[in-house]
């Protein structure tokens, strides 16, 4: 224990050198910027910056890249709240209540709560990594295909909770999401499925055009429907800062979100992303007033924001202890480490303790810097919402199109964006929430792959899912959650239909 403390202090000293602080700041700034610009994600940015990092000491390079990674999470929630664009799959949930808060004139408090929840979660996750990284890595190894499949089942059940309105339409959206995710190359045989011979579809539909289309473009079309409502903010812009009541409401959600994010973050392959959905679903279930969710509940911003930041940071654990990158951005950082002659994996902690502890300690500074950068910006973002809508929406559309195009330099993806935009509008008119669809879309391929892999490894024995203890526990949890949802909602569903306008 004392040893860890000593190492951590060493790490703080390394991270606090002026040069490393500077790179941490640069990383946080770039991250915020790309998070705010729709489309250009951290993967592309880190890839573009890799050559520059060749000339930096490895610790500084990784501190900067890590800053970009979690900075993008911050920036992503800004666009989710202001204009309903989920930049990253983890900020989809932030759209639900964050954007509603903005529409109600509470963009300022939403942004501030998002930043502060992330800060608290970031602090907690840093100490959590420092203390428990090695044993947690062993825990991640316990998750095989069967366990992942059961986790995804639980995730999909939780997706029903995300939606307001009828259960039937939520289920429909989940199934549609699963269908859409089936488009692409079959993982086991390499056969093309439902690609209609279009090569761009061979790797499936991209997440960004789908999410941006369903959320942001659909929203824009609806706003243009009524000339009178052509404003981003319906009401008067109230206070920029959260009220005392907001803070009081957020204590529980932030605590639970942080713990959930830290736990799920260590699972490579979707853990960090699931955590924001799970945290939101959990808060909605625990809340005494679940009706407030989806209408601008501050808890609905605090919980997923703390969960996704905690998850983003703890997803470094598998990389630094096992050499397993949890997502594409972290894979790029593994590449950067290799370029510097450091082999990511079990030996990083013993062979490169400076790098390991320096990187972890820099996350403390990075999180503080992000809040310092973001809090003053809130004023500016809120002002931006006062721009007349006739000027605002064309700019937004152009940004969306450029963002989607730059992902793969593909016009086809822009066409997909338009298609999903129209679909998103149709969903809004029909009163269907797109969030369960998006979650199912992301989880679908993981679920299918792990199902088939588990069955291949068990040689076709389906009982493997209940024989493995962790898998069984997750499935039982899923059944319990399903019952919990079904029981009250039969009575509730009627009420919800009347509430819709």
């Amino acid at each position, binding site marked *: 224990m004392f040893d860890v403390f000593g190492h951590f202090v060493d790490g703080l000293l390394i991270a606090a050198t002026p040069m490393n602080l500077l790179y941490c700041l640069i990383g946080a700034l770039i991250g915020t910027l790309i998070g705010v610009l729709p489309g250009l994600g951290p*993967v*592309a940015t*880190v*890839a573009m910056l*890799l*050559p520059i990092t*060749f000339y930096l000491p490895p610790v500084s390079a990784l501190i900067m890249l890590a800053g970009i990674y979690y900075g993008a999470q911050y920036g992503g929630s800004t666009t989710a709240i202001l204009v309903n664009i989920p930049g990253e799959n983890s900020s989809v949930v932030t759209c639900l209540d964050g954007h509603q808060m903005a529409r109600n004139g509470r963009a300022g408090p939403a942004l501030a709560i998002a930043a502060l929840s992330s800060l608290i979660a970031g602090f907690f996750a840093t100490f959590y990594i420092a203390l428990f990284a090695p044993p947690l890595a062993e825990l*991640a*190894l*316990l*998750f*095989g*295909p069967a366990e992942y499949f059961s986790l995804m089942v639980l995730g999909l059940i939780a997706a029903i909770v995300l939606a307001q309105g009828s259960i039937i339409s939520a289920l429909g959206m989940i199934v549609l999401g699963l269908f859409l995710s089936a488009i692409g*190359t079959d*993982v*086991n*045989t*390499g*056969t*093309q499925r439902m690609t209609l*011979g279009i*090569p*761009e579809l*061979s*790797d499936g539909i991209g997440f960004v055009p789908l999410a941006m289309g369903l959320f942001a473009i659909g929203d824009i079309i609806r706003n243009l429907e009524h000339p009178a409502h052509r404003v981003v903010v319906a009401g008067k812009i109230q206070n920029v800062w959260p009220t005392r009541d907001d803070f009081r409401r957020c204590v529980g959600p932030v605590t639970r979100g942080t713990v959930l994010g830290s736990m799920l973050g260590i699972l*490579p*392959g979707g853990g960090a992303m699931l955590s924001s959905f799970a945290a939101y679903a959990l808060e909605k279930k625990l809340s005494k007033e679940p009706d407030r969710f989806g209408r601008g509940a501050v808890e609905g911003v605090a919980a997923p924001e703390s969960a996704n930041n905690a998850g983003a940071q703890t997803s470094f654990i598998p990389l630094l202890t*096992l*050499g*397993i*990158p949890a997502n*594409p*951005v972290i*894979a*790029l950082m593994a*590449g950067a480490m*290799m*370029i510097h*002659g450091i*082999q*990511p*994996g*079990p*030996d990083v902690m013993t062979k490169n303790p400076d790098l390991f502890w320096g990187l972890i300690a820099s996350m403390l500074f990075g999180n503080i810097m992000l809040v310092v950068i973001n809090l003053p910006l809130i004023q500016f973002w809120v002002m931006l919402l006062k721009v007349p809508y006739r000027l605002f929406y064309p700019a937004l559309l152009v940004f969306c199109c450029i963002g989607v195009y730059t992902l*793969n*330099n*593909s016009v086809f993806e822009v066409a997909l964006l338009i298609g999903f935009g129209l679909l998103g509008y149709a969903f809004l008119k029909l009163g269907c929430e797109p969030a369960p669809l998006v979650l199912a879309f992301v989880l679908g391929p993981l679920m299918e*792959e792990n199902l088939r*892999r588990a069955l*291949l*490894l068990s*040689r076709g024995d389906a009982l493997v899912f209940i024989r493995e203890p962790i898998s069984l526990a997750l499935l039982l949890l899923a059944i319990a959650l399903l019952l919990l949802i079904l029981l009250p909602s039969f009575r509730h569903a009627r009420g919800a239909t009347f509430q819709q306008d």
Partner: protein
Amino acid sequence: MRKLIAIAMFVAATVSQPAHAADPWPTKPIRIIVPFAPGGTTDIMGRLIANTMGKNLSQPVLVENRAGSGGIVGTDAMVRSPSDGHTVALVISSHATNAVLQPNAPYDPIKDVTPVTLIGFAPNILVVPLSSPANTLQEFIAYAKANPGTIHYGSPAYGGSQHIGGETLKLETGISIEHVLYRGSSQIFPDLLAGRLQTFFANIVSGYPYIEGKKVKALGISSIKRSARLPDVPTIAEGGLAGFNAVDWYGILAPPKLSPELTKRLTEEFARAINAPETADKLRESGVDVTTGTSEEFGTFMKDEIVKFKELAQKVNLKAE
């Protein structure tokens, strides 16, 4: 500011002009299309080369990721670009295997490209978890023969060298092991380390830290010669399977009908950038056996690879779509 840019452009133009006065190439930034996602081995390789080459030519060299369909989307984009030496693609072994596995690809892998140069090879290493009873290739074969149908091997790409390695191993030893496909090596390692998966051919780039850190046992390397990076790992051929060779290769291709002069110029410049210590050392460190050559050599090599893969695909029943 605008004035500054104008001055900078003027200076750049006057400085770079005399060097290439007789030569019209390069007249604008060069694009290297990487037909895979950012962050992979090929992407990092492309960026290393682009960086050195950009400095050599005083002309920006940009990497553009066009992922999709096992490299077909990006390669097709290169094939359709003008044959002026300003667009090339960084391809891997899948360029040859796609000829068999994806017969409906929109281009011919030989006729519709101009080979520029090979970059090098990366071998795969047959690894087993520490809990495995096998310590050598022969022990593994004996173990597999004693437990038919219970051993699974993973691979990150259908028809890739790691899949071919496994199928060749089955073919040459008569063992029965089942293939399980994953999306990338990073997904395979957790299952291997935990012992849920019994073996796989790990690419040297991603496998090195596990082998060096003694988290897995290395039974053999899939190249003809031992790797300088892992000199203690015997080749599969040494383990008793003479001539065993299943490696990944990397190369640069240009659009079809590039003029011989430009091809020669491109080959020279790419070889210079690849062999420069700042690139080559980094590539070797990650386990790549750097080998550049002429356009003709690369062309013949690709044709041979396609023929060899066609024969193998028939023998082991790898299906085209």
